């Protein structure tokens, strides 16, 4: 009896310690962001008070200021356009390719898969200069098209590595039945495989969406003031001193990050698998 009680107490202590750890975790990893959201809901006087204000009546004046500012809206629109276009294109190109990678054997296949892996790993800054020179040579510098082309291409490795595994795990029997009924490969792919692969496609789409939405370095070089995306605008706020406009900076940051958080939550189960290039199941 005594041993049982001791075991129970030890378990209780263990649980308490675990929760202490978990709360610390929350404070370290999430509180900084909540603090930034807090700043975005403060007036200028409240932001620049020392020691900081912990309780106040939230104000939306920073959001009003940002959302009536043409700079922010233009860059947000550019980000939306670039992301939508590159996700659509990269899915159109990448998904049929992933299916072929999963179902067929053809010469150069493993070389192609490894090249795609390397494409994901190499530092963008090291490829930026020649890309910039080439886009300039074909008259695409400072256009949204150049960023869309870059994002589409650099999403392909993500899509192929996620979708290849997904297609490989689908049963072959349904396609084979379709072939026996006289369907072409294309028809079987469109009518049978794609509907089955919808959950995988959603994951691939969101990963490529996050790549385009979060990117800074390609857009910083390939766009100008008219075609810049939100991260480029945000980075320009940070140039040198952050000045006194913390309210606008934090409010724009929050607005840019909200879509990211929503989409990450949708795919959270597959996130790590996607980001580690399919090495972890």
């Amino acid at each position: 009896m005594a041993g049982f009680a001791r075991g129970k107490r030890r378990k209780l202590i263990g649980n308490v310690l675990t929760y202490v750890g978990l709360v610390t975790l929350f404070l370290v990893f999430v509180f900084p962001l909540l603090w930034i959201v807090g700043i975005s809901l403060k007036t200028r006087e409240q932001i620049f008070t020392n020691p900081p204000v912990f309780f106040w009546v939230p104000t939306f004046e920073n959001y009003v200021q940002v959302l009536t500012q043409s700079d922010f809206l233009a860059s947000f629109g550019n980000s939306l356009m670039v992301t939508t276009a590159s996700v659509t294109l990269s899915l159109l190109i990448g998904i049929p390719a992933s299916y072929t990678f999963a179902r067929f054997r053809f010469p150069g296949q493993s070389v192609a898969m490894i090249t795609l892996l390397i494409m994901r790993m190499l530092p963008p800054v090291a490829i930026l200069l020649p890309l910039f020179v080439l886009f300039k040579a074909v008259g695409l510098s400072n256009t949204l098209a150049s960023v869309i082309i870059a994002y589409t291409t650099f999403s392909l490795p993500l899509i192929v590595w996620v979708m290849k595994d997904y297609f490989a795990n689908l049963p072959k029997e349904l396609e084979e039945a379709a072939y026996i009924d006289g369907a072409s490969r294309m028809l079987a792919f469109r009518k049978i495989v794609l509907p089955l692969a919808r959950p995988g496609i959603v994951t691939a789409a969101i990963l490529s969406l996050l790549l385009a939405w979060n990117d800074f370095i390609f857009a910083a070089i390939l766009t100008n003031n008219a075609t810049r995306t939100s991260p480029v605008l945000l980075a320009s706020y940070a140039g040198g001193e952050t000045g006194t406009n913390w309210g606008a900076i934090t409010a724009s940051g929050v607005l840019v990050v909200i879509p990211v958080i929503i989409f990450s939550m949708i795919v959270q189960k597959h996130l790590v698998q996607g980001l580690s290039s399919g090495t972890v199941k």
Partner: protein
Amino acid sequence: MAVQQLEPAGPYAATADEDVLFDRRNAWIKFQDRIFVPLTIVPTVVASLLVFGIPLAFSLLLSFQGWKIDSGLFAGQFVGFANYQDLFTDPLFRSSLMLTIGYTISTVLLELLFGLSVALLLNSRVPFVRVFRTALIIPMMITPIVAALTWKLLLDPSYGLINAILGTNTVWLGDPDLALIAVGIVNVWQNTPFVAILLLAGLQSLPSEPVEAAAVDGASPWQTFRHVTLPLLMPYIVVAVLLRTIFEFRSFENIWVMTGGGPANSTKLLSVYTFEASFLSFDLTLAAASSWVMLFIVLIFCVCFIFATKRKEIQ
């Protein structure tokens, strides 16, 4: 026995049919099937070649040439290894190489250490642990520029939260001894969750028998962890370390937003050096050479990664 070959059985089985219309339809399907593989692969290959292959080849060429931005695309003069020589005799490049190595090793080690602790914590079976796991995903996914801005404001000397908590007036980003640590914190903060969730997936996929056997044999929790769990988790740790090394090596956004490489070049990592050579001083051939040094280093890690994951697939 299931059908092994993926040859569509239909069209071939029906070729004996006499119906001409049916034959023509058959021929069309056969044609479609024949071009299916090239049709699906070619767009990916073309895009990768145009946006990745050709630029890479061009910068490799450039790194062995004397070239200016206003000369023709292929008007450069071959200069052998002169650009690489310039690069390695540039004290700024050498210091940025050393800084990058130090920065990468320390951030990856910290991410592994914290990531492993967080993974063990999240692996405990207490109610609501899933809520914390979900919350942990947020820093890892947010726009890097926003993460960098967040920490720039938190580390602000006069009104930042960090100084307010510590009761200090430290100028984190203006002090050459502290700036690299400060920009490193952002990436450790952003990427520890990735390592944690990857290792958590590893922990949850481990068989429970060895741990139970160790408990039966009277091993302490620490002994069990050290001699049973850790060796089993090793393949996941290797993947996490290699991936994080590859991605920390390219760190750019946090530095660009927070310090721009300063103060006194104390945060000028290779990525910043390459970026500045490319787009601020327009020393394009030097930038190409420095790009290829970066590419070469990352390629070595890619090869390690490919071998590490191959071996895991066999197990």
